[in-house]
C-alpha cells in the first residue's frame, strides 16, 4: 500500500493467518501475560508465589511426606515434625461410631451406605427413577435410618442416643436439620408471603427470632430451658432437645432461601395459577413451589453446607460429634504429643472440607445449569 492517501484500495492477496509471536502465546506468552506483565506484577508473582509455594509445600510435607503412617505413639514421639496419622488410625472406629455398641455397628454402616447411594442417585442427573429416589431419601429414609440406628424395630436392640457419637452423630444432626427444616421452611416462607396478618406476623417473628440469635444460645436454651416447657414426666433426651433447637434454627434459614425463590418467580406465574382456578395449596404444589424450589437449589445446598458446619457446635453442650470426639481424644495422656492436636484437627478439617467443598461444587454446577436455562 504505497500511496496511502489514495482512497481506493483493494486487496488482491489475502494475508494468511500467522501464529502469534512466541512472546505472547504458548507457555512463554502465558507466563508473560499472567505472571510478569508489569514490574509490579512480577514482584507480586515472586513474593506471593514464593510465600504460597512455601506454605503449600510446608503443609504437604507435614501432612504427607514427613508424616508418621505406621507404628504407635512411640513412632509419633520420635517424629514430632510430621502428622501423626497412627493416632487417627487407632481411634478411627471411635471417630466414626462414637460409643455405638460394637456388634451393632453394621447398622451404622448400612445407614451410611444407603445414604451415600441415595444421595448420589438423587444428585446424578441421568439416574433412572431419580424422583423416586429423592422422595425416598427425603420422606422414608429418615425414619428408617432413625429406626436402624436407635433400634427397637425389626427386633433390633436399642442403642441409646447417649452412645452415639463421632461422624454418625454429625450426620444425624445435619440430616435431621435439613429434613425437618425443608418442609418447615417452606411453610414459613409461604406464611411470610401470606397476606393474612396473623399468619404473616407469626412467621416473620419466628424467622427473625431464630435468625437473630447465635446457634449456641439456642442450643443452651434447648439443653437447659426446654425441659421446663414440657409437662412433668415428658422427657426428651439431650440429643433430641439439641435436634429440636437445631431444626428450628435451620428452618428459619431455609425459609429465607425459599422466600427468595418465591420472590424470584414472575408475577405472571401466580396470576396464571389463579386464572386456572386452582386452589391456593394446589397452585402452590403444582405450579409455584416446583419452580421456586428448583430455582433455589443452590441456595438450599449452601444453607445445608452452613448447617453441616454448624453441627460441630453441639460439642459445646457436651455431645460428642466428630469434632467433639477428636477434641476429647487429643486429651489422652498416652498421645500427649506435639503433633497430635494438629493432626486431629487436620483430620476433621479434611473431612469437613471434602463434604462441604463437594457440595459447593455441586451447587455451582446446578447454578451454572440453571443460568444457561434462563438464557435466550
Amino acid at each position: 500500500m504505497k500511496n496511502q492517501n489514495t482512497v481506493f484500495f483493494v486487496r488482491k492477496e489475502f494475508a494468511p493467518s500467522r501464529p502469534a509471536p512466541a512472546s505472547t502465546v504458548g507457555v512463554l506468552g502465558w507466563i508473560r501475560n499472567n505472571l510478569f506483565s508489569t514490574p509490579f506484577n512480577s514482584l507480586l508473582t515472586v513474593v506471593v508465589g514464593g510465600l504460597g509455594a512455601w506454605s503449600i509445600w510446608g503443609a504437604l510435607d507435614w501432612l504427607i511426606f514427613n508424616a508418621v503412617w505406621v507404628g504407635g505413639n512411640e513412632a509419633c514421639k520420635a517424629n514430632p515434625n510430621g502428622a501423626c496419622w497412627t493416632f487417627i488410625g487407632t481411634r478411627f472406629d471411635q471417630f466414626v461410631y462414637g460409643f455405638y455398641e460394637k456388634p451393632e455397628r453394621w447398622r451404622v454402616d448400612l445407614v451410611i451406605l444407603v445414604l451415600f447411594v441415595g444421595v448420589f442417585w438423587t444428585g446424578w442427573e441421568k439416574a433412572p427413577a431419580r424422583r423416586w429416589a429423592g422422595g425416598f431419601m427425603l420422606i422414608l429414609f429418615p425414619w428408617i435410618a432413625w429406626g436402624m440406628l436407635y433400634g427397637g424395630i425389626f427386633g433390633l436392640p436399642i442403642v441409646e442416643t447417649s452412645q452415639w457419637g463421632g461422624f454418625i452423630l454429625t450426620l444425624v444432626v445435619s440430616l435431621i436439620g435439613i429434613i425437618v427444616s425443608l418442609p418447615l421452611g417452606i411453610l414459613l416462607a409461604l406464611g411470610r408471603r401470606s397476606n393474612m396478618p396473623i399468619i404473616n406476623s407469626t412467621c416473620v417473628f419466628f424467622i427473625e427470632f431464630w435468625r437473630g440469635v447465635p446457634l449456641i444460645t439456642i442450643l443452651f436454651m434447648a439443653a437447659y430451658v426446654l425441659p421446663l416447657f414440657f409437662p412433668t414426666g415428658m422427657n426428651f433426651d439431650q440429643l433430641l432437645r439439641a435436634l429440636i433447637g437445631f431444626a428450628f434454627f435451620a428452618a428459619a434459614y431455609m425459609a429465607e432461601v425459599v422466600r427468595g425463590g418465591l420472590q424470584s418467580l414472575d408475577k405472571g406465574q401466580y396470576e396464571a395459577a389463579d386464572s386456572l382456578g386452582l386452589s391456593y395449596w394446589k397452585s402452590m404444589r403444582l405450579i409455584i413451589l416446583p419452580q421456586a424450589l428448583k430455582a433455589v437449589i443452590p441456595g438450599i445446598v449452601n444453607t445445608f453446607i452452613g448447617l453441616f458446619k454448624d453441627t460441630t457446635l453441639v460439642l459445646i453442650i457436651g455431645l460428642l460429634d466428630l469434632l467433639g470426639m477428636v477434641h476429647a481424644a487429643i486429651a489422652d495422656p498416652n498421645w500427649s504429643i506435639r503433633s497430635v492436636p494438629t493432626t486431629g484437627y487436620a483430620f476433621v478439617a479434611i473431612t469437613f472440607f471434602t463434604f462441604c467443598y463437594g457440595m459447593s461444587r455441586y451447587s455451582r454446577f446446578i447454578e451454572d445449569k440453571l443460568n444457561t436455562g434462563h438464557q435466550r
Partner: protein
Amino acid sequence: MNTLPNPESRAQPVIQIQKMNKWFGQFHVLKEIDLEVVTGERIVICGPSGSGKSTLIRCINRLEEHQEGQIVVDGVELTNDLKHIEHVRREVGMVFQHFNLFPHLTVLENCTLAPIWVRKQPKAEAEATAMKYLERVKIPEQAEKYPGQLSGGQQQRVAIARSLCMQPRIMLFDEPTSALDPEMIKEVLDVMIELADTGMTMLVVTHEMGFARTVANRVIFMDDGQIIEQNKPEEFFNNPQSDRTKLFLSQILQH
C-alpha cells in the same frame, strides 16, 4: 459529497497505522493493517461480524493492545507508555454499542466527570460545556435524570455528548445503533450526522449503509481481519471490486 474536504489537501494525518497485527491468544484477529486518517475524514468501517472491525477501532485508543506494527495517533505512538496512552485517550472519544453510561451518576455528572478529573476544568465550566453538548444532542432537559430513566436512544445520545465534552479531535463509534430499537436509530444517526457537519474526524463501525452513503467520505470493508477494500462511498457501493465485498453488499443490501 463534493463539498467534503479533499483528504489529499490535508497536511498531517491524524491516525497512522502501519503493518499492525493483533492476536487474541493464537487467533490472528487483525492482519497487516495499514490505515491513514486525516483530520476531518469520516470513515465507515463495515464487514461481517468477527471480521475485526471493532477490534481495529479499539486499538486506536488502546482499549486493545496490538502486538506488531505501529499506531500513531495525533503524533503520539501507542506503546505501553501510560503517558502516551493518556494523551491519546484524551484526544479520542468513543461511543459504545451498549452506551456504557455510569448508572450511579446523573446525565450531567456523566458528562462532567472526565472534564473535571482529566481536563481539570472548573465544575461550572464543565457543566456549561456539558449543557452545550446536551443541547446539541437535544436532551438538555434530561440533565438531572439518571441513565436508568432514559430510553436507549436518549442514553446513546448522552454517551455521545459525554464523549464530546472532552472536546476530542477524533470520535470512534463502535456499532452505536445496533443495540437500539428501530425507532431510536434515527435520533442517534441524526446526532451523528450533525456532528459530521461540524467537521469532526469520525471512525464509525456500523451496518447503517444509508449513513455510510450520505456521511462518509471513505468506506472500508473488512473481512477475516484484513482491510479488503476501501473507496469513496459512491464507488464502493456502486462498483465494488473484490468478490468478498460484492458478496457482503449483496447480503446486507437485500434487507
